[in-house]
């Protein structure tokens, strides 16, 4: 067998034949489920305010009844509290989730006070606010001699149903659902890509350090060239990564075809076979690009801690798409998005986001991929040069600039 393949086989087994790999492989689909399906399930089947009790101070019977009727769909309970002190102690003891303080002639007030247990359940607070506003509006209209029903009809504007041509959501509730679908899919894909590229990169960097620290490197170099050794060290875990992705894609496809319909869960419309293909298509070059660089840094590093320090600049580029995720989602065709989708260290994730959100022109996709592949080749060649020198260097913590200079040595 070819020596590169022998090293790759050894590294593949070292990566895949252990419990951690199996656990991560199994957790991957759960992560996809958690980020894509779970919010949808929660939104349709559960209510965060279910069972919560709203205490109301200073309300008459009709107001209490109106609040109870309005909050009934959210499965919240409305109770009357004698005064503010009772409401506060009820909140402190956990009996009430919130307490609405209504002063005399509250329908004319500009602001109302809502005491809350956590201060963070905004869906619940917004619902109460909407009910209070509707009751206040009706009361003001009636006091002015206007039919409240007429006012409601006059103020009710049309809602938006945002539709992307060619991507009409099947049976979905409209724009918000579609937006959330894209958001969850993008988030799941980006997180998977970020985590796997980072984990595999670090794994390869550490495996190179291990070769130095275990003092096997000279022995290895007496059997294989440094280039074969590097190629094998990158290919082996890469194969493990591909198997992992194949498993995840299979699970996702099963989810689209079987699990979603069986559980009557509407999966995000962006979770398609085509988009899963792009996920894998961008993972492969991203893996080779980052792994080559990590291997070079591993060859220059003295230990794991040193590797982490050396890889910090790399981490910035890997994290950039995560930090600017919202921007790339809302402005996928802006100049910054386009530049980042061509720059090889960010392009795998940013171009993937663009493909998911608003497919770019084919030439942009082709150019981005071509730049990425050329960068992979360049990074590998650079890594091979650095690796050849660095793998034999021990005993001194070197700076990044010094390590990069090794690439120019003959």
């Amino acid at each position: 067998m070819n020596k590169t393949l022998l090293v790759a086989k050894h590294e593949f087994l070292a990566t895949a034949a252990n419990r951690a790999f199996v656990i991560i492989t199994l957790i991957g689909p759960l992560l996809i489920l958690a980020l894509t399906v779970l919010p949808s399930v929660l939104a349709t089947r559960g209510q965060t305010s279910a069972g919560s009790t709203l205490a109301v101070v200073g309300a008459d019977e009709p107001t209490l009844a109106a609040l109870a009727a309005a909050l009934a769909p959210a499965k919240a309970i409305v109770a009357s509290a004698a005064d503010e002190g009772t409401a506060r102690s009820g909140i402190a003891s956990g009996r009430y989730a919130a307490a609405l303080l209504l002063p005399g002639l509250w329908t004319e007030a500009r602001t109302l006070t809502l005491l809350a247990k956590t201060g963070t359940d905004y869906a619940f607070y917004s619902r109460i606010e909407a009910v209070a506003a509707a009751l206040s509006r009706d009361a003001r209209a009636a006091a002015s001699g206007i039919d409240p029903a007429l006012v409601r009809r006059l103020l009710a504007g049309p809602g938006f149903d945002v539709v992307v041509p060619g991507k009409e959501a099947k049976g979905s509730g409209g724009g918000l659902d579609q937006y959330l679908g894209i958001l969850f899919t993008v988030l799941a894909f980006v997180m998977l890509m970020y985590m796997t590229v980072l984990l595999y990169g670090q794994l390869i960097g550490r495996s190179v350090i291990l070769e130095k620290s275990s003092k096997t490197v000279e022995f290895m170099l007496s059997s294989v060239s440094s280039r074969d050794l590097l190629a094998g060290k990158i290919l082996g875990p890469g194969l493990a990564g591909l198997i992992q992705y194949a498993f995840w894609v299979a699970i996702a496809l099963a989810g689209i075809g079987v699990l979603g319909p069986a559980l009557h869960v509407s999966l995000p419309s962006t979770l398609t076979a085509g988009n899963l293909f792009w996920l894998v298509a961008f993972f492969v070059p991203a893996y080779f690009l980052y792994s080559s660089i990590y291997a070079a840094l591993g060859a220059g590093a003295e230990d794991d801690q040193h590797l982490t320090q050396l890889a910090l600049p790399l981490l910035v580029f890997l994290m950039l798409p995560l930090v600017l995720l919202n921007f790339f989602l809302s402005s996928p065709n802006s100049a910054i998005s386009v530049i980042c989708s061509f720059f090889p260290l960010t392009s795998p994730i940013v171009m993937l986001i663009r493909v998911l959100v608003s497919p770019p022109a084919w030439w942009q996709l082709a150019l981005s991929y071509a730049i990425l592949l050329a960068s992979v080749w360049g990074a590998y060649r650079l890594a091979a040069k650095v690796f050849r020198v660095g793998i034999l260097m021990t005993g001194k913590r070197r700076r990044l600039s010094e390590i990069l200079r090794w690439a120019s040595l003959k």
Partner: protein
Amino acid sequence: MYCVINYYRGDGGLRGGGRRGPAKQETKVLEARDVRKNFGDVHAVDGLSFTARPGEIFGLIGPNGAGKSTTIRMAMNIIAPDSGEILIRGRRLAEEDKAIVGYLPEERGLYRKSKVGDMLLYFAALKGCRAAQARESMDAWLERFGILDWKGRKIDELSKGMAQKVQFIAAVIHSPRLVLFDEPFAGLDPLSQDILLKAMLELRSEGVTLLFSTHIMEHAEKVCERILLVDRGREILSGSLAEVKASYGRNAVQIEYDGDAAFVEELPFVESVTRYPRWLEAQLRPGCDADELFRALAGRVKVRRFEVVAPSLHKIFTSLVGVPEEADHE
């Protein structure tokens, strides 16, 4: 028991490895030609030339820092010489030649989480050895070293001595025709040293050429046929061990004794003395007779053995380069 590797040579011949005698037309398995290597201002290797012949044990000896390991690394093409060249079978070590060369580096280690058997088979495969043959060779070597039962255990669990035996096996599992050992006995107990020495002698008897570096003269004296003594990167002397020793005459005396023999160093006809716990080696001044020494000893210590010998390699070594900073006797 051993694996057979076929390899292609530049002269068009296809030679088999395994346990065969040296090829007839070969006279130089390894040849260094005026090799130089500097590390900054340090001349690690300074114009060394030597030749290892087929089927011999060639000793590259010298104190620590003499340039032995650097020379071997250059032979293995791990680092490049600044000038000169080291040829293995007539050319710089190419990828395809690595299958016939075994190497035990000074800086050596094993994958701690791997199992002994898996790791040895991996190394054998990298040398182009077929799996079945590698398995046979591995079992034979492990059995010979008495560690066959450890084949399925992790490297982590091995003692230092066991690990060194496994490293030795890794260097020879593929039945190389040339093996370079860099300080193979470092850190080993005397029993393990003897086992490895015996294995080296057996390899030689099967036609394998061995080059080994050491700073322990006794080891070189036990197994080497020819030596190159280096110090600070330069050749101090070279030749067959017998010739080297003969050139120093038989004016050394080895004495085993009981008592205090410190006075021997003060005797006027004794040039120098190397003392060990229960014996000593005295170098006599030119023209002096061993009888004088025997007479001087009589009555002062109890002599158990008195032998006129050629000077030991250690004696020659210390007379040429001085007493090394680190102890030579391990």
